[in-house]
C-alpha cells in the first residue's frame, strides 16, 4: 500500500493525464492502474478535475466555425473532397507538365532506340560481309604465299643445278630407279677437291614416303654401305649438304624409319648409281 501511495504522490499520474509521458511510461502506468484500484480511481479523479477545469475555462468558438466543422465532418465524402482538392489539383498541375515532358522524352527515347537498332543491324551485316571478305582475301594471300615460296624453292634449286653444270669442281652422279621404283631418279653432287656431298631437291623425283619414314643416302665403299645422312620429303632449303666421303664406288637411297638405320634395308632401295671421280 505504501508503494501505491508513493506512486500516486510522485505526480506521474498527473503527467499521464496531461499526455506528458512516453509510450513506455504510459504502458507502465496503465499496468499499475490495472493492478491497483486506487491508482485507477486517482487517474479518474485527475481526469475529472482537468475536465471540469477545461469546461470552466471554456471559450465558445464562433457559430461560423461550428457550421464549418459540422459540415466538414457530417459528410465524410465531401470532407475528403473538400480537404484534398486544393492540394491534389496543385500537384496535378505540376505533374501534368512533368508527365507531358516525360512522354515527349519517352517518345524521343523510343525513336532513338528504333534508329539505333536499325543502324546496329545494318552495321552488323556490313561487318559480317567484311569478315567474309577478309577470310577469302586471307585464303588467297596464303595460296599466293605458298605458291611464291614453292617458286623460290624451285628457283634456288634450279640456280644450284645451273651452277653445278658450269663448274669442273663438282662431279654429278646420276642415280636411276631400281625395279621397285623404275621411274625414280636423283642427282648427287660430289666435290672433287674437298669431297663434299650435296643433294638438290630440284634434281630429284623419288616415291613419296609416309610420316614415319624418310630417305637415307648411302655410299658403297669397297662393297660396304656407309651412311651419308637422312633427308625428308620436304625441306626448307632446296640444296642440302650431306656427309663427306673420300671415296665411293656407288651411291644409293633407301626408305628407312625416321632417324635412319645402321644398315640399309635393301628391299626399300629406290635409286642407285655408280660413281667415279
Amino acid at each position, binding site marked *: 500500500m505504501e508503494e501505491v501511495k508513493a506512486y500516486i504522490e510522485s505526480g506521474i499520474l498527473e503527467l499521464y493525464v496531461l499526455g506528458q509521458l512516453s509510450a513506455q511510461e504510459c504502458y507502465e502506468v496503465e499496468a499499475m492502474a490495472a493492478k491497483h484500484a486506487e491508482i485507477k480511481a486517482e487517474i479518474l479523479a485527475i481526469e475529472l478535475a*482537468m475536465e471540469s477545469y477545461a469546461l470552466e*475555462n471554456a*471559450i465558445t468558438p464562433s457559430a461560423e466555425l461550428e457550421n464549418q*466543422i459540422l459540415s466538414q465532418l457530417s459528410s465524410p465524402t465531401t470532407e475528403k473532397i473538400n480537404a484534398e482538392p486544393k492540394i491534389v489539383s496543385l500537384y496535378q498541375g505540376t505533374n501534368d507538365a512533368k508527365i507531358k515532358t516525360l512522354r515527349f522524352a519517352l517518345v524521343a527515347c523510343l525513336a532513338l532506340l528504333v534508329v539505333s537498332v536499325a543502324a546496329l543491324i545494318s552495321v552488323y551485316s556490313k561487318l559480317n560481309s567484311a569478315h567474309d571478305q577478309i577470310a577469302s582475301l586471307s585464303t588467297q594471300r596464303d595460296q599466293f604465299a605458298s605458291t611464291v615460296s614453292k617458286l623460290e624453292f624451285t628457283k634456288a634449286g634450279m640456280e644450284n643445278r645451273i651452277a653445278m653444270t658450269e663448274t669442273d669442281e663438282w662431279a654429278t652422279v646420276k642415280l636411276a630407279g631400281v625395279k621397285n621404283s623404275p621411274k625414280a631418279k636423283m642427282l648427287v653432287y660430289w666435290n672433287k677437291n674437298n669431297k663434299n656431298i650435296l643433294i638438290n631437291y630440284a634434281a630429284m623425283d623419288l616415291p613419296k614416303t609416309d610420316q614415319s619414314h624418310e630417305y637415307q643416302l648411302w655410299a658403297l665403299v669397297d662393297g660396304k654401305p656407309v651412311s651419308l645422312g637422312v633427308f625428308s620429303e620436304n625441306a626448307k632449303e632446296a640444296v642440302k649438304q650431306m656427309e663427306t666421303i673420300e671415296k665411293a664406288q656407288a651411291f644409293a637411297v633407301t626408305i628407312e624409319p625416321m632417324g635412319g638405320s645402321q644398315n640399309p634395308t635393301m628391299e626399300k632401295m629406290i635409286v642407285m648409281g655408280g660413281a667415279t671421280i
Partner: protein
Amino acid sequence: MATAKKISLSEEELVNALKKQDTIAIKALYDMYSSALFGVISRIIQHTEVAEDVLQETFLKIWNSAESYDSSKGRLFTWMMNVARNLSIDKLRSKDFKNSNKNQDIENNVDFIDQQKKVSFNADTLGLKEMVTTLKPDFKNVLDMVYFKGYTHVETAEELNLPLGTVKTRVRMAILELRKKFN
C-alpha cells in the same frame, strides 16, 4: 454520484457512436466539448484565427482516429484534450507560425514575468476565470507551462531551473487544488 453516472453513461454512448462513425456523434461531440477544447487551444495559441484552425483540425483528427481511442485507458475528454493540446503545440512549434508570431512571443514573456513578480494579473485577456488565479503562484507557473504553453515537464524543469521531482510535485499540487475546487 447520480450525475457522475449519467455523464459516464452518455460518454459511453458517445464513444460507441463515434466509433461507429455515427453522424449523431458529431453534433453531440461539438455541443458538449467544442468550447472546452477551444478553451484549451486558446490558452496555447492566442491568435484566434489560428486557434480556430487548430480546433477544426482537432475535430477532424478525433473523428478520423476515433478507432485508436481506448476507453479502458482513460476518459474520452482526456484523449480529446491531449489531441487538441498536441495539435496546438505542433502548430506553436511549426516554422511558419513562429515566424508570424515573433512579436506576440515578447508579450507572452512580459505576461509571464508579471505573474512571477505577483503583479496583478489580468486573467480576462487570456479568458481565464478568477478561480485559476487563486492557485498558489508557484504551482500555477508550473501548471501553466505544462498545460498552456506546450512545455514538456522536462523542459519546464530546465526553464524554471527546478529539479524534475519538484516540477512533478508542483503539477500534482496544482491539480490537487483544482480537485478541491471541483470535486
